[in-house]
């Protein structure tokens, strides 16, 4: 687990640093997608979650869902292309779960990736991801996760 300015970044995840999203390759080949703890800190308490429907094909960097907080609204961009195979009903019922557990119960969608090998090569992992997040935080003037 890397920690950058108080924000956690688990080592087993693939990150799109620019879009502040993570992807976890599951044993069955599917991919779970979520927001980073850094994104949650920037957004504040998330109050709304609107996902794409199960069965939708989503291209790389297109929205898999939108999230809203009292002060911000934005897309969560697909870290890889693929089909949405599950959305998180628990998060729909209680969007604050995203803030409370961004890498666990607060996952956003599960996808069946169409080009994992090619597209995951452009995601960052481990120390490289931590360095990239530090640079992004520096550029954003981000104080740190609470």
């Amino acid at each position, binding site marked *: 687990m890397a920690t950058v300015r108080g924000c956690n970044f688990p080592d087993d995840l693939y990150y799109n640093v620019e879009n502040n999203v993570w992807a976890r390759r599951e044993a069955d080949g599917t991919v779970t997608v979520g927001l980073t703890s850094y994104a949650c800190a920037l957004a504040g308490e998330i109050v709304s979650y*609107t*996902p*794409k*429907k199960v069965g*939708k094909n989503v291209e790389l960097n*297109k*929205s898999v*869902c*939108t999230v*809203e907080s009292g*002060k*911000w*609204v*934005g*897309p969560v961009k697909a870290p890889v292309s693929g089909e949405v195979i599950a*959305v998180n009903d628990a998060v*729909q*019922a209680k969007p604050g779960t995203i803030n409370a557990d961004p890498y666990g119960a607060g996952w956003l969608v599960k996808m069946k990736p169409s080009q994992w090998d090619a597209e995951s090569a452009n995601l960052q992992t481990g120390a490289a991801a931590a360095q990239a997040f530090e640079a992004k935080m520096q550029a954003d003037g981000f104080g740190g996760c609470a």
Partner: protein
Amino acid sequence: MAESHYLDHGEQRVVIVMTSGPSTPHRCATPFYIGALLASMDADVRIFLTMEGVLLAQKGVPENLTAMKGGKKIIEFMREAKAAGVRLHLCKPAMPGYELEVEEVIDEVDEISPAGALADLILGCDKTMFF
């Protein structure tokens, strides 16, 4: 029991015509928020600043304007809309009436557009909204 909502409308083009300006600050944040929301849903969103809305593109105005007491500055709403993919147009023929010069225009404006561009956008889009 809250109804569940999903992103299920395909990619549409939406034009938001923003006529409100600094004289009605409480009307100046929501259009950018809605624009950001629509763009987040993969809509192609254009916000066209015209009439008093052009003043929101004048350096020094959106940086010092809030829709509510203690709220976020309008420039932040504009930047978040742009970060979500919104393109900002500024109505060129409206600028003289508000004594707005090109060199005073904020960097966030993507395009200074003739009225014909607005007409073209409206005739070619799926949805229009006026504020």
